[in-house]
């Protein structure tokens, strides 16, 4: 049986841990709301971009000079994996899930004889993947200390990937990120970005059946539109991941707060029992001492 003092100290320490976890939960909740709003705000642009891309892609799809961003390099040898994780831990299995999915994918591709390159976004994923796959790293990006992610950040990643593609260093690119489903569910998603995923064919829009005129020609527009479309995909993945991170942290901290509460209850019970046992013992000692006289 631990001494009363030891128990008291223990209870106090669990109480302060609980205070911290419940504060972290509150912070995560408010950040989650902001992240969700930001993700919501990015949606209209992405949708319209997709619509335009769909129209363009169908009109140049069979052209031999179609840009590599759209149709790939024609090879399937070097795969770039962009692993999007958070910069901070204490968010349950959020970061580990991405790390594990990326590792599994990398192993699978290598077993098929492909070359894998990894671009790690976020400090936690970098640390996780560095342990085993350090030789595949081509870059790492961290937004630690940044208040919010803006489109410029996504463009930077997009530009890097485009440059690698243009230099013939990669043939395909896939983003691995946590898609925000709800506060308790983040779904690990592998999204291929190069070659661009086939656009969803929307039924005849309001052009009255007529096809679009392009100014300048389709391919010039495409070469400008595609990097932008890539950036917006990266941007969405970053935002989803940010929202997912806060959601995951919120539920992890909620659990931690509850566990701390349970523990405090149990420890207090032990403490009270020990205190009562002490009192009883002292009483017995006094009474038997008095009787002996």
């Amino acid at each position, binding site marked *: 049986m631990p001494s009363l003092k030891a128990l008291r100290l223990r209870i106090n320490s669990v109480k302060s841990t609980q205070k911290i976890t419940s504060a972290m939960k509150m912070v995560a909740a408010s950040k989650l709301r902001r992240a969700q709003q*930001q993700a919501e*705000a*990015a949606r*209209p*642009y992405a949708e*319209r*971009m997709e*619509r*335009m891309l769909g*129209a*363009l892609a169908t009109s140049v799809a069979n052209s031999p000079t179609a840009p590599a961003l759209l149709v790939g390099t024609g090879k399937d040898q070097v795969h770039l994996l962009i692993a999007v994780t958070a910069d901070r831990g204490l968010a349950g299995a959020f970061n580990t899930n991405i790390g594990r999915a990326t590792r599994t994918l990398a192993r699978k591709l290598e077993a098929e004889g492909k070359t894998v390159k990894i671009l790690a976004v976020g400090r936690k994923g970098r640390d996780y993947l560095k342990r085993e796959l350090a030789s595949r790293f081509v870059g790492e990006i961290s937004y630690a200390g940044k208040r919010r992610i*803006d*489109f410029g950040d*996504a463009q930077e990643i997009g530009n890097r990937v485009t440059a690698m593609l243009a230099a013939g260093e990669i043939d395909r690119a896939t983003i691995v990120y946590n898609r925000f489903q709800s506060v308790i569910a983040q779904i690990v998603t592998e999204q291929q970005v190069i070659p661009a995923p086939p656009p969803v064919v929307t039924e005849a*829009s*309001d*052009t*009255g059946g*007529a*096809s*679009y*005129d*392009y*100014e*300048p020609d389709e391919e*010039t*527009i495409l070469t*400008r*539109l595609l990097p*932008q479309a890539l*950036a*917006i995909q990266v*941007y969405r993945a970053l935002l989803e991941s940010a929202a997912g991170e806060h959601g995951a942290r919120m539920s992890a901290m909620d659990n931690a707060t509850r566990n701390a509460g349970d523990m405090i209850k149990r420890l207090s019970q032990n403490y009270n029992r020990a205190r009562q046992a002490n009192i009883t013992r002292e009483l017995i000692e006094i009474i038997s001492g008095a009787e002996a006289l």
Partner: protein
Amino acid sequence: MPVALEIVSPEKLLLSRSVEMVVIPAAEGDMGVLAGHTPMIVTLRGGTIDLYEGDRVTDRLYVAGGFAEVTPTRCTVLANEAVPVGEIDRGAADKRLADAEAAYATESKNGTAAEDVALDRVQAARAMVAAAA
């Protein structure tokens, strides 16, 4: 019949309303869009989007380039950056022009592929300064 105009940037939907006519700075010259326009997809250079009501300009926005999709009933502008002309900071515009010109100067010396991009930036910045004046 009005045109449903939408201006969106990657960060948010900036404007969505019906206008009688809108003039957009297409890459190969300004383009007036009225209802019933033939469907087009165009790239934009840096310049101002003018919203017309009758023959009066009701709003002017500066865009730093982007894309536009025009259909008989809609005009959708995907802008990298859009600011109402009245809110442009003259100092920031001047600075951007200076930066863009400096970048262009180095690029054109090297004669790299980035030269065109830099030139576009210079032109977009020039349009911004002009709009602010």
